[in-house]
């Protein structure tokens, strides 16, 4: 029994996968992108443009307009003037537009997947199998609600809020745009959406698609730019609601700015999810869930299972299996269909992740990383796991937003619940056990908006998503997601 770990497996095999790059020949990218205001692409008044690059190889993709106060004002005015007509339209007619957008996304799924991967660095298999199909699914789902809103909230009369400002992050660019736009316009609001500056392209492609769908001008406006542009949008006096997904830091700034204003707000912010594995768990599937929980989308997931809690008696076994699994994750060119872990979204984010890896080393944390090599050019980070981490470590407390997992152990249910809840965040959590009663016990005691049992990182338009504590408030998705875009009497 003593030598349990001496037998090794060799995943570097004689049989290797040949390169399987997805083609980008069918992609039509313009040299320069303008702002989408009132149904038209128009030049920005700042005449300033910034480059969008491919994080996988640092090559130029397109120039993107930087919207300033004047542009934002025009976009908000356009949304405001579109309101009356959009709301006058029969709800079933609004639904038709949204259905049309959903169908067009499906038709052009391949194009969107490739652009998403080029612009953001995520593996093509994820953009192809998850991001784009889910984005279409959100439009389909909320198209269905458009003419049934009074049934969603029985006994209440529901009205649209008005002009909605939406700011979305760079981790799921098109999907987040869909999460935001679909329920907003289904409820009869009009929208000004700002994508993140490193990933504007699919939102702008969506703008082209919205034109093709014949959506009335001004119902959806898409403005590009960085933080300053976002601040102009948030502070515009004519907006009636802000929906923001992004960092807790920016979320706090937004809340300050809306103080005293009649602006409804929903925030979906950071997370540091506990993924808890008990000794009675289906271990192999749990290991897969841990991997999916933290390394999906390079760990750029607000609900990522970034804190792993292993029941101490199975720590050795789980870690060994994680080590094996790490060796079969292929890291590299996101456009290769066999890549599991692609590029980090930006230089800035890579620096943040590296900072935390440095802190881990300074704290003396032990760990391991994949033995695979990573490309020299582009922004890459090997999947990394730190073990024996204590609750007081900065790595266990702060959101890293990268492929870095910290592992802690526990002995009892009460202990692990206390540790799991001992964080400013509360977005998601995972529980792995074969015992249904245990799963239900934990899901009711964990302070997290989503608790997954024997799975992780599962998303569906019908299911609400959102946080507790500093992970934000408001729910997106499902019936609950309508609530954020309606006034009720």
């Amino acid at each position, binding site marked *: 029994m003593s030598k349990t770990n001496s037998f090794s*497996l*060799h995943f570097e095999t004689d*049989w290797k996968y*040949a390169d399987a790059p997805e083609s980008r020949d069918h992609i039509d990218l313009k040299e320069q992108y303008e702002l989408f205001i009132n149904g038209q692409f128009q030049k920005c008044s700042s005449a300033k443009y910034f480059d969008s690059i491919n994080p996988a190889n640092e090559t130029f993709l397109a120039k993107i307009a930087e919207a300033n106060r004047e542009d934002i004002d025009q976009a908000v005015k356009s949304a405001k003037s579109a309101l009356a007509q959009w709301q006058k339209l029969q709800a079933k007619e609004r639904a038709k537009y949204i259905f049309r957008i959903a169908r067009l996304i499906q038709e052009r799924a391949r194009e969107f997947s490739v652009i998403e991967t080029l612009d953001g660095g995520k593996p093509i298999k994820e953009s192809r199998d998850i991001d784009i199909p889910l984005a279409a699914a959100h439009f389909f789902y909320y198209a269905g609600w458009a003419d049934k809103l009074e049934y969603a909230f029985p006994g209440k009369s529901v009205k649209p809020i008005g002009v909605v400002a939406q700011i979305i992050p760079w981790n799921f660019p098109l999907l987040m745009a869909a999460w935001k736009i679909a329920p907003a316009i289904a409820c009869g609001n009009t929208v000004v959406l700002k994508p993140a500056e490193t990933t504007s392209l699919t939102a702008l492609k969506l703008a082209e698609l919205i034109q093709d769908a014949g959506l009335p001008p001004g119902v959806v406006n898409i403005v590009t730019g960085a933080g300053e542009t976002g601040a102009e949008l948030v502070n515009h006096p004519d907006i009636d609601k802000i929906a923001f997904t992004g960092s807790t830091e920016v979320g706090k700034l937004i809340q300050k700015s809306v103080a005293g204003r009649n602006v409804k707000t929903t925030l979906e912010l950071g997370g540091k999810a506990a993924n808890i594995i008990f000794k009675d*768990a*289906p271990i192999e599937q749990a290991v*897969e869930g841990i991997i999916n929980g933290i390394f999906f989308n390079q760990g750029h997931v607000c609900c990522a299972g970034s804190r792993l809690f292993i029941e101490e008696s199975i720590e050795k076994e789980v870690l060994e299996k994680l080590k094996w699994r790490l060796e079969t994750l292929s890291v590299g060119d996101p456009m290769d269909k066999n890549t599991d872990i692609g590029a980090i979204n930006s230089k800035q984010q890579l620096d943040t992740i590296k900072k935390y890896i440095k802190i881990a080393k300074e704290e003396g944390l032990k760990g391991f990383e994949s033995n695979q090599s990573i490309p020299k050019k582009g922004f890459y980070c090997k999947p990394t796991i730190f073990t024996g981490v204590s609750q007081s470590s900065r790595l266990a407390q702060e959101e890293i937003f990268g492929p870095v997992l910290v592992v802690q152990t526990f002995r009892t249910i009460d202990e692990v619940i206390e540790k799991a809840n001992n964080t400013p965040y509360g977005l998601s959590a995972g529980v792995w056990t*074969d015992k249904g009663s245990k799963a239900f016990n934990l899901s009711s005691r964990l302070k997290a908006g989503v608790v997954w049992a024997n799975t992780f990182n599962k998303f569906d338009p019908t299911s609400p998503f959102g946080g507790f504590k500093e992970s934000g408030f408001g729910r997106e998705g499902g019936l609950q997601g309508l609530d954020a875009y309606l006034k009720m009497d």
Partner: protein
Amino acid sequence: MTNPFDFVSPPIDQIGLIERTQKFSTRSIKNDSKVQALKLALSMIDLTTLEGKDTIGKVQQLCAKAKKPHDFMDVPTVAAVCVYPNMVRVAKQALSKSNIKVASVATAFPSGMSSLKVKKEDVRYAIEEGADEIDMVISRGKFLQGEYSYVFEEIATIKELCKEVSLKVILETGELGSLDNIRLASDIALHAGADFIKTSTGKISSAATMPITLCMLEAIRDYYKKTGLKIGMKPAGGISEAKLAIHYLVMVKETLGQDWLNNSKFRFGASRLANDLLMQLRKQETGFYQSSNYFSND
């Protein structure tokens, strides 16, 4: 022999297991990598004929195919020919001067509904006739009655007879009813001394699937981790397309790695698969699909 606390089969989550196999299926295998995989799969086949109407002529023809799968392509031979005990001698003769093994089903195949005495005799006979490998069936009835030690003892007893002969233990997963049972049966067979564990007899409609095979591969991995012994795996039935066979190889590569990617540790119990592999190989060579008339049906 084994500490009982050391023998706890973990629960299996079906949804998670299926999800994992779907990831194997999305691997894109192209060009050289595909040719290599097709040849590897061919070399792992147990060409099988297990029918009441098997004749000397039929078995000889199958052996000819085993030795020379294609007229002129440079391809490996299959791993083994699998027959009933009374055809072992015929196959052995037909395959002399080749490295192809002769496998024989035994132990009252396919139901296993007989006494241990009869089963032992069945195995002895097959070995005397010259079988290199024995494919036994477990007693599913006993297993489902909860008589796990009976199942264990039976395998261990047959194993004692096998000595120089490789023992494959068929779980007949389609009759076990759940993945938890499949995992438990795998663990019993592994601990009782199987050299290979095998999914199915091919005699019921429910045969090998990727999730079931993964469940068994993971049992093999845990057993290896515990003992250092590398036990083989044989999915049987239901694998007739080259593309699916390649997905299986991806699964083996990413679950157990290099040491299992050869025909001493992994086999396909599939006969129709051979021609599809050959057809795909020919397509890789010429760029065109050939008519199935150009591939011999034996």
